[in-house]
């Protein structure tokens, strides 16, 4: 009887906690000069949750931007490593990022967002020799391209806000990083970035060009899948 309980205990310790962990590091941009304070809220949900939706909760500890690029580290855990991941980075003027005005166009807090879609970032028990890790850098806070005297290359200049606007009402973003695209059907400035699984570091030491290998049939698989 005793050894059965012991065995069950071991099984519960070893079998019931199949948690996959992804170490994340975002290098956040310096605080824009025109604002006195700006906070960043990072949220993460399975890819089954649309990025376009408003997510309640699911947020990491907010962090305030500084005058310098700011590394922001976090750990994401899941019991469903087969799922892809959505990550939202929202820039807000208040800490909780809970001020959501009905008309963003009239708000002094545009609450810009950067969306990330991560392809298969989790792997069970794959922490040797390195943890699975995702790193991204956001060089600037997404914002609308300012305009003056109708100098917008695309769209038109909204004289009231002095921003280039598209027909949809969304503003033209000032910049869009490589690998990302502007989301043009939203009022708030938003970038959408795709993260390929081969850029998820893990299962190999050092810094290879990427973290996938090519099988004889030409299929690309992550090193953690080998």
């Amino acid at each position: 009887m005793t050894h059965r309980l012991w065995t069950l205990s071991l099984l519960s310790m070893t079998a019931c906690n199949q948690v996959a962990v992804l170490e994340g590091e975002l290098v956040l941009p310096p605080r824009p000069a025109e604002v006195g304070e700006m906070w960043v809220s990072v949220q993460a949900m399975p890819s089954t949750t649309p990025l376009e939706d408003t997510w309640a909760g699911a947020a990491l500890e907010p962090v305030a931007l500084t005058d310098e690029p700011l590394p922001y580290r976090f750990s994401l855990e899941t019991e469903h490593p087969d799922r892809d991941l959505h990550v939202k980075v929202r820039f807000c003027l208040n800490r909780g990022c809970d001020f959501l005005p009905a008309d963003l166009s009239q708000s002094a807090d545009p609450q810009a967002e950067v969306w990330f879609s991560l392809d298969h970032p989790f792997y069970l028990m794959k922490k040797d020799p390195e943890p699975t890790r995702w790193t991204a850098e956001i060089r600037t806070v997404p914002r609308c391209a300012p305009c003056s005297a109708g100098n917008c290359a695309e769209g038109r200049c909204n004289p009231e806000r002095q921003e280039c606007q598209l027909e949809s009402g969304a503003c033209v973003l000032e910049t869009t990083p490589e690998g990302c695209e502007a989301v043009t059907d939203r009022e708030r400035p938003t970038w959408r970035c795709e993260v390929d699984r081969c850029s998820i570091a893990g299962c190999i030491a050092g810094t290879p060009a990427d973290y996938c290998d090519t099988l004889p049939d030409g299929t690309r698989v992550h090193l953690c899948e080998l």
Partner: protein
Amino acid sequence: MRQPLRWASAFLALFSLLSALPRGHAQSDSDRQQAREAFIAASQAADEERWADALEGFERAYRLSGVPTALYNVAMVLRALGRHRDARDAFRRLLDGHPEYDAREQAQALLEEEAARVAVLELVGLDPQADYELRLDGRLVESERGRRRELETDAGRHTLVADREGYRTFTWEGAVRDGERRRIEVVMEQLQLEPERRPLRKSAAFWIVTGVVLAGAAALSGVLLHRRAQLEGETDNVLVIP
């Protein structure tokens, strides 16, 4: 078994006998008085079938007076209690100790009657050269080596326990009737003598097993710690993804 006339006539006989006894038999007038009182009380108890009280009173009266009628009544009470073996012995004591007793023929007949009702447990299979400890109904029974083992008892259920060094205890339980002779075969299983054991800590097997267990535990702990380390994030800023 009610025999009020017997107790009454015995009382009269006792009274007359006590009066006629030489002074040296009963130690004192006080003893005689106490014997008389004990005899009267025992007779009353016998009339009321309070056999335990009657037995005690007659035995006391006989101890104090030595009057054979008191011993006769002791035997009669034992007979009434179904203690036939003791009753037989009491009648035997009476006949052997009091050749002058005027009811010898009656006592002799009762002795033979009681002797016929004694049950006997005949133990067979015992080694005549071995020592045994025998207990009948929890009481130690004398058992000399080489003698035929026969245990007398009365009718009813009994328990016999036989012990012999180096053997498992033998136990018999059963019921016997008046005068029954029951043959009991005592089969005792010899205990296996365990080989001399080396002190555990000096045993190589002990250290091997201990080493294996410790190594296994260490490996298991390592695996568990490793797995646990695998499962924990590097930061305190943790979010669990549903």
